[in-house]
């Protein structure tokens, strides 16, 4: 009785999952389906070991694969119109894939799991891509011809907003990093005067890159990208308008707060003029006269360059020459 029910169970298993192949007698309890013995009696039954009572119905022989009948000039886009797994009977190529056995060759394509596992691009042949793009061209728009170079783009559209989209397979399509927005502006393209520019640089701090004259504002504090874009634009607006304002406490700016070294009113100028006046004699009115001299101007340039750009061989040599000329050495 156990064997009878198991036979029926196994027969149903074979009908429902034909790809799995024959199950051995050990897997009697594999299927938990309710089957009446009467139902399975007439179908393809499992041949009993004791006697050939249930002869297996002969299976229909598989026909020749489609590849034999494919013409050479067929429309391949009709064979593989969309992404589909590899079908050895539909692909008329003698492909071999897999690790060869000893003294052998890679296995053929018939029944080859490796070819089915790997993603194929049979649906994306050049002909198919051309067809797709022909249909898609109607929805594309042209780039304005006046903006052909990057320089022109920067001139008319100086603000750049960068954001990233992520596409990957996983339990969720969302990626929290996609909400970050980077806003990049060149400060030379904004309407800023001298004071506003200096104040803007002080407000912005590390977000400004001196080499490329680019201010980068990065926002990701809002949950949505549109909100972050608006926030970045808002920050830029606020920075701009704040930098044009002059607060009363800004008058207390001292020489230590200055961004660049300026020679006028510095101890270097005072010392030089005192030295020259003592050497040549003369009163206060000779100071302006001295400032107009070429050597004094050269000295001023060399000192400013040394302080602003740092010490280098050329700068130090220039300072030496300027000092020698000023002091007539």
């Amino acid at each position: 009785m156990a064997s009878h029910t198991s036979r029926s169970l196994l027969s149903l298993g074979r009908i429902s999952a034909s790809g799995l192949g024959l199950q051995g007698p050990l897997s009697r309890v594999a299927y938990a389906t309710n089957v009446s013995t009467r139902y399975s009696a007439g179908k393809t039954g499992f041949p009993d070991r004791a006697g050939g009572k249930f002869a297996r119905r002969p299976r229909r022989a598989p026909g020749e694969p489609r590849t034999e009948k494919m013409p050479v000039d067929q429309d391949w886009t009709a064979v593989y119109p969309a992404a589909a797994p590899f079908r050895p009977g539909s692909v008329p190529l003698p492909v071999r894939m897999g690790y060869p056995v000893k003294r052998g060759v890679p296995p053929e394509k018939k029944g080859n799991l490796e070819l089915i596992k790997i993603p194929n691009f049979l649906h994306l042949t050049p002909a198919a891509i051309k067809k797709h793009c022909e249909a898609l061209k109607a929805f594309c728009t042209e780039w304005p011809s006046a903006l052909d170079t990057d320089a022109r783009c920067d001139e008319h559209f100086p603000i750049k907003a960068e954001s990233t989209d992520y596409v990957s397979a996983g339990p969720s399509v969302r990626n929290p990093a996609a909400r970050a927005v980077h806003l990049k502006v060149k400060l030379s393209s904004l309407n800023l005067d001298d004071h506003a520019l200096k104040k803007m640089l002080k407000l912005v701090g590390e977000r400004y890159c001196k080499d490329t004259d680019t201010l980068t504002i990065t926002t990701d504090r809002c949950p949505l990208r549109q909100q972050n874009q608006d926030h970045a634009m808002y920050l830029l607006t606020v920075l701009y308008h704040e930098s044009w304002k002059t607060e009363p406490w800004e008058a207390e700016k001292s020489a230590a707060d200055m961004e660049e070294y300026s020679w006028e009113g510095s101890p270097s100028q005072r010392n030089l003029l005192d030295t020259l006046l003592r050497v040549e004699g003369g009163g206060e009115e000779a100071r302006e006269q001295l400032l107009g001299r070429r050597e004094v101007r050269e000295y001023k340039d060399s000192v400013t360059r040394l302080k602003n750009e740092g010490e280098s061989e050329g700068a130090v040599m220039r300072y030496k020459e300027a000092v020698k000329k000023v002091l007539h050495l």
Partner: protein
Amino acid sequence: MKRKNFFLFFFIVCPTLLKNMAAPMALRRDIFSLTRILGGISHSVPRALGACSGNKKCHLMRSHLPLASRTSFHTATVFSSQPSSITVTEEPDTLFQKVALLVKGHDKSVLDSYELFSTMAAKELGIAISKVCELPKDTERFTLLKSVHIFKNHRVQYEMRTHYRFIELSHLTGSTARVYLEYVQRNLPEGVAMEVTKTAMEKVPDHILKPMWEEESIDNKLSQ
């Protein structure tokens, strides 16, 4: 130039959609939920791509084709007999100076094929490709114990290799970018390749042209 919208026959009703929307984002999102009725009413003659290079603000913008028909190979696709219509909308198109694709995968040959596909698609659609390069692969290795219990001296080592491809396109309009990205993302191979797209946009500053303190001082003077 006006923006073009795409209405398909078999999408669900969106009763709140108006013909000329003020908010551009809402209009773009509602593309996918428009009715047959709206499709019939607001069908307009598709405009030819006229030259609009002088006017920087208005650009022709079209929405992308929902590619449900192309990739649903496992379902019986019921196509509509009504042809899809392109509608032009009064809305300036966004401009992308650079669109950078970074494709990641475990199999180099799959990435090779994908690169071929995406570069060919870009060429067919007339998109300028500035750079196509292969970044060096990343290998993540770790060592685990071979046995479930003890045998500390016998370990097994695994590694995961991630290969990269970098494709940079330049000078794309919003419509073109959306069309290309959707096409290329829908045909992304399964699992093996991932895509990270960096999109850089260009905008014109509007309320940052003049400091507002000037107008305030003028207003104060006038009021006095």
